């Protein structure tokens, strides 16, 4: 009897273990979002990326031990109009032929209040790498972990929009990137 109880206890613990372990997980790309917003002629415009992937190893109790890598397929840009999308893939903008992917590595994550964190790390786009700081919130519910946040970036620092497009009166320099990552259940 006693032995059986121990076996049950061990089995339960073993099943529950991944919930606490920091095994790397792939995000649920279908439920996750990467969107961006900027101003064009002072008019707010929105877009996003359809294809991206991330592997996250994150323990809210030990945020400093986080390992997270995000990759975005820039060719999957969604602007809602084909003229803009074609242009965005060209050399003056994202130059996806030479730089098909953007990458972010969360090299440091710090707690910033209950359910709130701040991630810092290098963001690489178009051959340029710049440290960015992205505050995010975390909710564990329904067996999934949802991470949501946003950060600003200056497009010209990444050479996004060169030549005549560097005119910030038509297309603003500041771009707000919003993200939502759904990390599948802890089973």
């Amino acid at each position, binding site marked *: 009897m006693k032995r059986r109880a121990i076996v049950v206890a061990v089995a339960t613990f073993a099943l529950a273990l991944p919930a606490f372990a920091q095994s790397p997980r792939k995000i649920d790309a279908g439920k996750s979002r990467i969107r961006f917003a900027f101003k*064009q002629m002072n*008019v707010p*415009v929105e877009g996003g990326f359809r294809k991206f992937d991330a592997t996250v190893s994150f323990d809210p109790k030990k945020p400093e031990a986080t390992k997270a890598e995000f990759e975005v397929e820039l060719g999957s840009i969604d602007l*809602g*109009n084909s*003229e803009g999308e074609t*242009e965005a893939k060209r050399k003056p903008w994202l130059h996806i032929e030479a730089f098909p992917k953007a990458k972010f590595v969360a090299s440091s994550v710090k707690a910033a209040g209950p359910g709130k964190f701040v991630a810092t790390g290098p963001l690489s786009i178009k051959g340029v790498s710049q440290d960015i700081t992205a505050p995010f919130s975390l909710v564990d519910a329904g067996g999934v972990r949802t991470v949501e946040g946003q950060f600003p970036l200056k497009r010209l620092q990444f050479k996004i929009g060169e030549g005549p497009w560097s005119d910030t009166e038509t*297309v603003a320099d500041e771009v707000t990137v919003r993200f939502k990552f759904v990390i599948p259940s802890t089973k």
Partner: protein
Amino acid sequence: MSSTSATEFTGTAIGLHWIAAVLIIGNLAFGLYMVDLPLSPAKLKYFSWHKWAGVTIFLLSAARLLWKLGHPAPALPSSMPAWQRKAANASHHVLYLLFFAAPLTGWLFSSAAGFQTVYFGVLPIPDLLSKNKELADILRVVHHFTNYALAALVVLHAAAAIKHHVVDGDDVLARMLPFLKPRN
């Protein structure tokens, strides 16, 4: 001089007519020119200017319509055959309809394409439609054809005015272009 008798247009009506004429013909030509330009910062600027002009035309047309209610247009010459008077009346109604339809379809198209109209870059005009690519493709065609119709009617309107002056020898054109009037 400034009598508002039914034989003359008011100075206000004449002034607004010619401002509208310049804006409408200018914006039609400008729209036609800019659509086929390759994407560039200039093109983005042109699209914004085109929209601002469209909003202005909409407001100006509303102002003209209100003015018209209080200051009816002078009657057409009695020498005109009845069918011509009917045709003139009908074409003016359709013109006004298109003065409003052209900017409205442009605004709807712009919203569906995901670009809010911000008047002079300052005053955001609310979007009735949200971003919808399929709808935007339809509204682009609707906006184009509304404006082809407007352009055709503007040509008809001007041609008829010239015909009145040159062929009929009446004062229909002169009352909108006072310097054509014989002095007495």
